[in-house]
């Protein structure tokens, strides 16, 4: 892998901030009761999302998971339409019908995520198969958490992706826990690359908080797939800030390590500075710019109207009205 350019590194860095600021704004608005439903926040995993986004081309597909709000706009959809979707507004990318777990954008090959963890792994297989049969050179990336490795679809999708040499990029965000259950308590191994290797899928494990390492591993994986050699599996070892529902349940040491010592943005910033790519002021300016950008999206979402009631019964079938509008 050649070293990446300064511009590219800075772009990766900026997009980590965009994810960070997006999630923070979203969490804030959620707590203020502006965002309905449930929310799974990707704070702490910014490097993985930035690495994935900068590897995928527009013609590649993405199946984001529940912590991938960041990927939704990094894939190319205007961020305000993503934010509006999460607010359930008419201007949302799915007119407010999908929400946090179902924000797709066909125009950039974002296939939306899925509230049923892991089920979309076989859908991604199907997209990859379809494109392969059509002679396209696109790949389908699917983001899966460590907990999700428990699902039967994990096995079915990996096995068939291998047999069919389907262009599937499995990007596994191993943040150590499902909701509260640790990866080692859930699975026969803590290293999910082990599960991939059984299917003869090339697999690499990488520090998901190290943006350059994450980026380069993802690039390598994509290159392999684009060369027609079949699926690839990248496991990012990372950590999420959000302890989910029940508050913090993880050892204080672990929390400190990941939030302070091994925190992806801080590490990247120090490295960019050390390498002389940008001054601290320049780097701080990026943060400020991003913040303004994201708050603009929040304002847009908040000002957007609620969906047209007709949307509630539209698109159940292609071309037909639903059966019972009224009783």
């Amino acid at each position: 892998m050649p070293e990446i350019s300064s511009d590219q590194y800075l772009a990766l860095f900026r997009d980590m901030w965009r994810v960070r600021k997006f999630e923070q704004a979203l969490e804030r608005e959620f707590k203020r009761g502006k965002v309905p439903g449930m929310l799974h926040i990707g704070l702490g995993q910014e490097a993985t999302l930035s690495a994935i986004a900068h590897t995928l081309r527009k013609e590649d597909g993405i199946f984001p998971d529940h912590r991938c709000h960041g990927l939704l706009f990094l894939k190319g959809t205007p961020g305000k339409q993503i934010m509006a979707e999460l607010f359930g507004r008419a201007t949302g990318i799915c007119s407010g019908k999908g929400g946090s777990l179902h924000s797709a954008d066909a125009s950039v090959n974002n296939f939306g995520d899925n509230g049923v963890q892991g089920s979309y792994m076989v859908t991604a297989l199907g997209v990859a198969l379809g494109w392969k049969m059509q002679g396209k050179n696109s790949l389908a990336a699917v983001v899966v958490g460590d907990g999700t490795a428990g699902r039967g679809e994990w096995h079915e999708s990996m096995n068939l992706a291998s047999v069919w040499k389907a262009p599937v990029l499995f990007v596994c965000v191993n943040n150590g826990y499902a909701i509260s259950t640790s990866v080692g308590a859930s699975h026969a191994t803590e290293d999910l690359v082990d599960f991939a290797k059984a299917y003869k899928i090339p697999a690499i494990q990488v520090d998901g908080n190290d943006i350059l390492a994450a980026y380069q591993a993802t690039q390598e994986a994509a290159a392999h797939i684009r060369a027609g050699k079949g699926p690839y599996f990248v496991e990012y070892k990372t950590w999420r800030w959000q302890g989910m529902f029940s508050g913090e349940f993880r050892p204080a040491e672990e929390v400190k390590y990941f939030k302070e010592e091994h925190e992806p943005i801080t590490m990247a910033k120090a490295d960019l500075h050390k390498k002389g790519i940008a001054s601290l002021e320049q780097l701080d300016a990026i943060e400020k710019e991003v913040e303004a950008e994201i708050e603009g999206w929040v304002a847009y979402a908040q000002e957007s109207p609620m969906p047209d009631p007709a949307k509630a019964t539209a698109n159940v079938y292609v071309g037909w009205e639903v059966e019972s509008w009224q009783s």
Partner: protein
Amino acid sequence: MAVITTVQAINEALGLMMAEDQRVYCLGEDIGKMGGDFGVTRGLFDEFGGERVRDTPLSEAAIVGAAVGSAMVGMRPVAEIMFADFIGTCYDQIVNNAAKVHYMFDGQFKAPIVLRTACGGGFGGGPHHSQQVEGWFMNVPGLVIVAPASPYDAKGLMITSIEDDNPILFLEHKALYRQKGEVPEGKYTVPLRQAKVVRPGKDVTVVTCMKSVHDALAAAQELEADGVSVEVIDLRTLRPWDHQTVLESVARTGRAVVVNEAPKTGGLGADISAVISEEAFSYLKAPVARICGFDTPIPFSLPLEKLILPDKDRVKQGILKVLGK
């Protein structure tokens, strides 16, 4: 017109559509060289090759997932689940993905898949190879359930289903596979969501589908001798089903018998009976009767199985009951 079996009729439809449209392909277990457990895809492998007549392992969730995903990017998959009883293994894929992608993404994607599967009892298949499964999916908006009762409809409905943009569960009753009928060569369509009056009558309306259509016709035939005129309606599409044809008929006859092979409670028959009673209330001269399978799993031993499934005689009893005889 050739006289061919239902298996051959569906096979013709698949061959025709694959030849016409590169996007159409088949996938499923042993559908390739072997042509499937029931021979429905026989010959297609030789004609179209293993890429388009694609063998899979026993991975039902992946079969449906691969179908849906490829459909979302423009393919037209026809997936086979060998026996309908196995469809519980990919239920989530059908209900939460196939049936919802169009709606939840606000029309951006669609999932034009056809999911073929062999259903129905009567041959000693036992609890896991005999069930009618439409009842498992009747409460699932977004899904279409198609179920032919004749070779003619089987071919026409398959062609229409492949051309349709919605996810379609296509039920093939095993008892009808070897049944023969006149089938035009070449392409023709049979509309979705339109029931067919397969026998006109004046005294009572029998609403049914698949194998039970033939039980109903036999019962009607026998009752004709007794001066009873029975109208038989073959639903053909089970969800969303054709309220209009059924209600018009009941408005004329004033009496209805719903016949369904699946267990009585909570099945297709319940929805039909409910709609008739609710919508044709003032026309009804007697309560609707449901003639269905008993509320049991399917036992293996043939005499037990025969006991729990509806047949011509039970349909007759139902008709006589609503006639007050």
